[in-house]
């Protein structure tokens, strides 16, 4: 087939394309249509995300005409609904940071230990029994967790520390931590179980114990998955609303002390949304600014998680 001549000869000798081999216009159109439909489905989620960001930005911009960004970031009070209005978002960020920190102090160690146990120590049967039960914990409505924090955990904590106020970030954070445990443990366990057996065998063959193998070989190998689990837990804690709204109180309070009541970003948004504020009031605009801040936080954590996963991905 070096000369084009030969090709031509072959072409003429070839029988005409049979009826069944001719392109079918109908099928082609149908394929196009389905492809378009699938594209729309994928595009809609992206479009919605961008629309949300656009609305958050456009609705909070008027606020920044009246309040300087510097005040927004440095003022130590958040009293947008008062006559003497202050717009220091750091007050709400402090509340969110404190409850999140308390929650993570519970969820990350416990979730990791549970994951190590289920992945490296538990028998197959035990694992298959415990995992679904643990995941039920994530299915409890957060409003139930909120009242559990307010009506059970806080009174218990008050027995140990009588000066604890009825609304406090400690109790909300602890219960939130319990709520997040299954998210952390489930993703961590999946990551650890994905570590190939030949790595574990290599460690055992060196005379390592199960715990040494789990901590020194399996956990580093599963690092990207563990990081993803922790980031997921952080995102859940930062965005969690009901528990903190119910149990931590809703007064903005610039403090990192978990023994005090405080409002988080999400709790403030609930509070304002439930009140009857006129739509064009400044107070109304603040919830968009708060929402934007919250979204920026989760965005940063998601990007961090994505980067960690890429950076430390193990190729087995």
């Amino acid at each position: 087939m070096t000369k084009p001549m030969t090709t031509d000869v072959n072409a003429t000798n070839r029988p005409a394309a049979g009826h069944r081999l001719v392109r079918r216009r109908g099928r082609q159109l149908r394929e196009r249509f389905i492809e378009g439909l699938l594209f729309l489905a994928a595009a809609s989620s992206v479009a919605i995300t961008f629309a949300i960001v656009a609305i958050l930005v456009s609705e909070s911009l008027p606020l920044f005409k009246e309040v300087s960004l510097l005040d927004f970031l440095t003022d130590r009070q958040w009293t947008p609904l008062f006559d003497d209005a202050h717009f220091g978002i750091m007050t709400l960020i402090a509340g969110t940071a404190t409850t999140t920190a308390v929650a993570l102090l519970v969820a990350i160690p416990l979730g990791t230990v549970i994951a190590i146990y289920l992945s490296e120590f538990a028998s197959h049967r035990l694992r298959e029994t415990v995992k679904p039960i643990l995941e039920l914990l994530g299915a409890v409505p957060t409003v139930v967790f909120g009242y559990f924090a307010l009506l059970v955990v806080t009174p218990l904590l008050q027995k140990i520390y009588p000066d604890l106020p009825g609304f406090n970030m400690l109790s909300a954070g602890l219960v939130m931590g319990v709520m997040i445990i299954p998210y952390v443990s489930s993703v961590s366990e999946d990551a650890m179980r994905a570590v190939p057996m030949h790595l574990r065998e290599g460690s055992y063959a060196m005379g390592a114990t199960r715990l040494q193998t789990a901590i020194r070989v399996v956990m580093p190998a599963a690092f990207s998955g563990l990081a993803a689990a922790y980031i997921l837990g952080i995102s859940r804690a930062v965005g969690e609303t009901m528990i903190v709204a119910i149990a931590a109180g809703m007064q903005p309070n610039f403090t990192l002390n978990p023994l005090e009541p405080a409002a988080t970003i999400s709790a403030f948004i609930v509070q304002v949304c439930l009140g009857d504020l006129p739509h064009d009031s400044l107070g109304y605009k603040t919830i968009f600014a708060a929402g934007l801040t919250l979204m920026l936080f989760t965005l940063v954590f998601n990007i961090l998680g994505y980067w960690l996963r890429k950076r430390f991905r193990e190729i087995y």
Partner: protein
Amino acid sequence: MVELATNIFDAPGSEPATAALKAESRHLNFHYGAFHALKDISLPVHDHSITALIGPSGCGKSTFLRCFNRMHDLYPGNRYQGEIVLYPDNVDILAPSVDPIEVRMRISMVFQKPNPFPKSIFENVAYGLKVRGITQRDLVETKVEQALRGAALWNEVKDRLNELAGNLSGGQQQRLCIARALAIDPELILFDEPTSALDPIATASIEELMLELKEQVAILIVTHNMQQAARVSDHTAFLYMGEVIEFNDTKKLFTMPDKKQTEDYITGRFG
């Protein structure tokens, strides 16, 4: 098979001149659940020499190898019967009273696929020392260097000991795994098809390394590659369907095998 085993031990004259025994399996049976994988295996492992296990896939050679460091203990439903006696202690390492971790501290293993840990080159070699609780920095450093030199890897990695082991080539990774196994001063090293994932050049360097290592330790190697067994080993056992068909001096087994089945296998007529 019992008869064969007795012959080996009763007639040392038929053996090549070798040093003392390092280990010996006696009437070893092994079950994976209901599957009878090893049937009454009695084989010696000589010190300072290489013993090769050959046979078709599924014949039980890897299963047999993994009995020596009690690897089967990691999975439920596995059962040993019989003994593997480790010398000079003269102790049955399969006995329930023996701690498998203590066994693995003295018998190390190199796997089919290089399996460096997701750590630095240095940390990989130091792993065995660390799990033994040895933390003195200078001692660990000396041992790591010795092991890397022993595995003919030192010159290639001495300037990048802190790099991730995963960045090494396949052959280097396997030599790193050998260094890791060497760092704990083992008495016996188990090689489970150590070159099956490597190219011919890397394979040659591993084989050369094994010949050097046998000056210090006993080596038991499973290989699919009969030329490899012929090249490196001093003794060879041919296993088939969980049984030892023939155990002999390597030269004899590959030139004048006693059994028809062995001859058929090594000449490629089956398997």
